[in-house]
């Protein structure tokens, strides 16, 4: 017993020595939050650290809710979020909402035999599924949008995020903006009060959504586009969604770009704006800015300088916005005007 205790103590001491040694070598930054941004951050950080060995950046995919709250509390220097902060939050803790890239979300499903087809789905139909009014895949409302496809008479298992999530935010915005009954009911937010549906499942993070959807036949899920490779590997289907002009569009570079240009010019100086359900015949309806939530008043001047440097690199054309990073996760680069606005915001970090 005594020997084990002594060993444990020695191990603790050694760990402490190692930890402090690392801290002395340079500054360390913590990025946490959106699981949708996480794959991109990993690509960025690995590349960035090759030329910047004096700064240690740690990345974590924990969900946008965590990203926002840990950026506010000061645990993390960068809180990654798919959602911009609400006015009420901004009032109590003013933070910078800095777009890093443009992302989209696909609606995935696992219907044996139909996963190679792109079903047509609309906001009101998805609202019906997630509120329990549409229970079966061969429901009249789904069949009407998918002539010529034989839909199975099987119960739909709607999967939603259990943790606070920017994906929930943009998905519920699509439902709110397209379906009045959803707007007046659950509404939108990073966490919403899901209507009572007996077999609805809550999953954690985008990886949890992919896993649950893959394991559950006849399920439907909303998953960030940076997980497109994973959902394809899992053999899931993804839907063509009805946009504001009434056309059914798939998420790809041109439809995401169309939506971004339709609303990008309206982006205000603090860059908090929804890009969901954008006008335009080619616009994909669920796209968003991926945000870095950053406290403008950093406690540590050294950290503030390194943080600014990294964020400037992330939004630079010859830095983080290069196609070799963004294409890997199916994100789109920020338009020139948005890069300018983001630069102005990054300059405010002190």
């Amino acid at each position, binding site marked *: 017993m005594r020997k084990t205790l002594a060993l444990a103590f020695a191990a603790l001491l050694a760990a402490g020595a190692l930890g402090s040694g690392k801290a002395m070598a340079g500054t360390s930054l913590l990025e946490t939050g959106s699981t949708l941004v996480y794959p991109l951050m990993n690509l960025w950080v690995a590349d960035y650290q090759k030329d910047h060995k004096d700064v240690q950046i740690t990345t974590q995919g924990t969900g946008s809710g*965590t990203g*926002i709250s840990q950026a506010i*509390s000061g645990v993390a220097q960068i809180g990654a979020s798919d959602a911009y902060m609400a006015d*009420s939050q901004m009032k109590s803790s003013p933070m910078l909402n800095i777009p890093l890239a443009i992302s989209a979300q696909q609606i995935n499903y696992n219907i044996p035999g139909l996963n190679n087809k792109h079903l047509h789905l609309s906001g009101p139909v998805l609202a019906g599924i997630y509120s329990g009014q549409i229970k079966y895949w061969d429901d009249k409302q789904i069949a009407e949008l998918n002539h010529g496809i034989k839909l199975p008479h099987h119960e739909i298992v709607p999967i939603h995020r259990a943790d*606070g999530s920017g994906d929930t935010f943009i998905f519920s915005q699509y439902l709110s903006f397209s379906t009045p009954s959803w707007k007046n009911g659950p509404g939108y937010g990073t966490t919403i*009060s899901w209507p009572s549906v007996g077999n*609805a*499942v809550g999953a954690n993070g985008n990886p949890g959504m992919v896993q649950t959807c893959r394991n559950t036949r006849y399920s439907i899920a909303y998953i960030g586009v940076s997980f497109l490779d994973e959902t394809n590997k899992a053999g899931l289907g993804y839907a063509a969604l009805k946009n504001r002009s009434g056309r059914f569009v798939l998420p790809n570079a041109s439809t995401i770009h169309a939506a971004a240009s339709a609303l990008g010019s309206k982006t205000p100086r603090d860059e908090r704006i929804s890009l969901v359900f954008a006008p335009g015949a080619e616009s994909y309806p669920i796209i968003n800015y991926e945000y870095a939530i950053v406290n403008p008043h950093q406690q540590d001047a050294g950290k503030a300088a390194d943080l600014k440097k990294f964020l400037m690199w992330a939004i630079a054309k010859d830095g983080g916005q290069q196609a070799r990073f963004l294409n890997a996760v199916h994100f789109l680069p920020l338009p020139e005007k948005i890069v300018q606005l983001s630069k102005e915001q990054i300059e405010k970090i002190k």
Partner: protein
Amino acid sequence: MASMDIRVGDTARAVSPAALQRSGSQTILAVLTGLAALASFAIIFLMLFFLIAYAYPAIRFNGIEFFTSGIWNIGNQYGSGTMTRNGFSAQPGASFGALVFIFGTLLTGALTMVVAVPLSLMVALSLVYTVPKRLRPIANALVELMAGVPSVVYGLWGMVVLVPWIGEKLAPWVTAHLGFVPFLGGSAGSGNGLAASVFILSLMVIPIMVATTRDVMLAQSNSLFEASMALGSTSWQAMTRAVLPSVRSGVVASVLLAFGRALGETMAVLMVCGAAINSYPENIFSPVNTIAAVIVSQLESALTDASGMAQRSLAELACALFVITLIINVVARGIMRGADRREGRAA
């Protein structure tokens, strides 16, 4: 037991009672142990006090609705204005009804006991009386190993192995063939849910119950079992009629311990329960949620509530779990004492 005897012997050899008295260290020891005993009460009391103090605005805001409503909604953080009740405000549209979680906690806990108690008793009895002597050390070591596995490991196994198996094999078969039995028919779901939670919780509490009841049975001298056998009873009769009644209070205590563990288990349940919100289970495969699991899964969302009411309502949930555990303890103790009195024994 054996190791304990050795330790007592060691102490006796190192410091004789006479030496203790001479140095006055007995007084110091008495004071120290007294303080430690007092501290355990004080810590529990202070924790409850600060938890209730923190949750107070939520208790006022939610009122009785907390226990009567099953709608959990932290409100619209992107909405305008706030809603105010009894002088405390929350995000617009907020409603903190905990009934779904309270119900889910008690249901998973109770079903776990239904599965785990008979199994644990049988395992403990066989470990003490029927397993060949040579195999006992191995069997005992396995049980203790199971009790020592961290809950997140059970949760991970449940997530990657158990849940897909229930979702793809067990649930579709059961709902198709046994659907006429209440609570077995209807939607087969995804595998995440009540059945998976109860299975995982049972795996976690059975080793605890086996270890404690086995020790109680071992402490009981073998004579009861042998006398009963000598009177011509079968070994089954000897175990159920002679041994079990004699260790009843020990068994009840271990069941209580296990029930408490099942009610408060967080991580493993969170990973397999399906995180139900606003809906009650329809059958044994439906998603559920427990108080402990929902506190973890909703905490980060609650931290984004600028009014702070969501956090305070989670604290109220924690208070509720605290009180539920307390009530179950008190009730069970009452039952034990009542039963003992009827049999003319001291509690």
